[in-house]
């Protein structure tokens, strides 16, 4: 009897440390910390409160969408439309408020737009069997085009009666001098982490990514959940768009261009697997952090900005290489 009880416990303790070292997210955290330590010594400008404020705030926009993207990627899908949805949501907010409506109405319209787009993507994917890549690639084009239509391709920088409120929402620092976007990010990360670990919905998302057929056979509502994850992804892009609008104080129709790739990169660097079944909220955040730290450091170290792509691309490949080595060792 003692044997049967001891065994699993010992097994669990072993795997706890082992799991930490085998975790891609853990090594990305180490990389971020090392980079920060190195930069603090190597440059004068890194460890200033202004630079750290900028970095943390810049992380947030990619990170918030990466949180939403994590849901999609865990189910084994992909959402390429998030950059364009961010732009469209920002533009709907801007145009609505510019027309004299309150900030509440603007946010409501913006969120509703994002959710509608997510639902559209999800229904095509879940009920009509379209490949996620194709559907969201189409939406990448459609949403940005709609943003141009909504604004007649102009820059909107006057947000009507609630102008000041919007700028405070995105640009303020209401608690302990932490930039507001960072607070939103932390809040959303906690919610995401909770959903993934503690809810039935979260469990089912992992099941779909692990074996969609098995999930269907055991009665997991696969289609409804797939629609929901694309809605969550679009919603996260919408939220990021609203915050970014408040922070920038202006919306142009090229807002968020190419952002989908940064978001996917952040998710993958943080340990999510594009094949589905794996991903965490924390991973999405540290992935976004690593990308931003790389970007920031290149600037501070005086390296030509053209090299940015090489370093970020390298980080993606390194993260995946790490995963390959781990799998290789296991299959040995």
């Amino acid at each position, binding site marked *: 009897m003692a044997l049967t009880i001891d065994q699993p416990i010992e097994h669990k303790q072993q795997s706890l440390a082992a799991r930490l070292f085998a975790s891609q997210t853990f090594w990305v955290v180490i990389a971020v910390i090392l980079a920060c330590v190195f930069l603090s010594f190597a440059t004068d400008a890194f460890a200033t409160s202004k630079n750290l404020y900028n970095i943390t705030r810049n992380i947030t926009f990619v990170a918030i969408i990466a949180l939403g993207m994590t849901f999609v990627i865990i189910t084994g899908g992909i959402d390429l439309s998030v950059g364009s949805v961010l732009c469209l949501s920002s533009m709907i907010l801007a145009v609505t408020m510019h027309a004299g409506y309150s900030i509440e109405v603007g946010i409501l319209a913006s969120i509703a737009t994002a959710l509608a787009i997510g639902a559209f993507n999800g229904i095509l994917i879940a009920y009509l069997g379209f490949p996620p890549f194709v559907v969201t690639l189409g939406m990448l084009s459609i949403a940005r085009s709609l943003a141009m239509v909504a604004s007649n391709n102009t820059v909107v920088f006057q947000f009507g009666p609630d102008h000041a409120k919007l700028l405070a929402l995105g640009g303020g620092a209401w608690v302990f001098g932490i930039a507001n976007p960072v607070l939103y990010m932390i809040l959303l990360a906690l919610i995401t982490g909770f959903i993934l670990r*503690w809810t039935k919905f979260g469990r089912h998302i992992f099941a779909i990514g692990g074996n969609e057929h098995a999930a269907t056979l055991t*009665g997991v509502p696969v289609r409804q959940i797939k629609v929901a994850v694309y809605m969550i992804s679009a919603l996260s892009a919408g939220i990021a768009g609203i915050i970014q609008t408040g922070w920038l104080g202006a919306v142009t129709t090229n807002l968020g261009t190419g952002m989908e790739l940064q978001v996917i990169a952040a998710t993958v660097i943080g340990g999510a697997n594009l094949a589905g079944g794996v991903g965490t909220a924390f991973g999405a955040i540290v992935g976004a952090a690593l990308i931003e730290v790389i970007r920031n450091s290149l600037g501070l170290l005086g390296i030509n900005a053209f090299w940015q792509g090489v370093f970020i691309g390298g980080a993606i490949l390194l993260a995946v290489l790490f995963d390959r080595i781990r799998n290789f060792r296991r299959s040995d």
Partner: protein
Amino acid sequence: MAVLELTNISRHFGAIQAVNDVSLSIEPGQVVGLMGDNGAGKSTLVKMIAGNFRPSHGTMHMDGKELILHKPAEARQHGIEIVHQDLALCNNLTAAANVYLGRELRRGVGPFRILDYAAMYKRAGQLFAELKSETRPRDLVKQMSGGQRQAVAIARTMLSQAKIVLMDEPTAAISVRQVAEVLNLIRHLRDQGISVVLISHRMPDVFTVADRVIVMRRGRKVADKTIASSSPEEVTGLITGAIEQV
């Protein structure tokens, strides 16, 4: 009275007639062996009973009442449990998570309910012990042997008090010792008055444990008789088509 009665059940996939006009009834506590060649329609038939597919034609009755199933959860509510042929397991989840897939235990009140990991680990552990399996509830299915995976799929059927357990080739790919364990479980279920439908290509399994054998060929039921009145030779003939029908 029959616990389950199928009347003229058919199912087609496009032009393929997977199950064709099958009628059968199953008594409480009866073990029915369902045999047939590859593609005979066995899995399709049990999937209709388990709520995975809707029949194209025909009706099902359970305890005399018409049984219409839209999803697997409804079949489970009626006391119908199934072990799928491909086991239907998610490699990225733990054994316990797989056992409870689609009916996770939760604690809390109203909308604030969270997964009850402790309870699921505990119950899954008990079920594996009952099955005399080495499976540990917290282990990922990815790392498991064929027999352990089978135990996980079988443990699902023991979660609630079933009336009918459908087993689609539960003894494929497991050791002799574990086959004996599964056959014991089937007898145990029968003794509790639970009916079992056992799909198997292994003649000895069916002939040691079943009370009745049903043979399907190309979607049709070609035989339905007691084990005592049949023989492995006859069943083989029925499966291959050497014997047309009895």
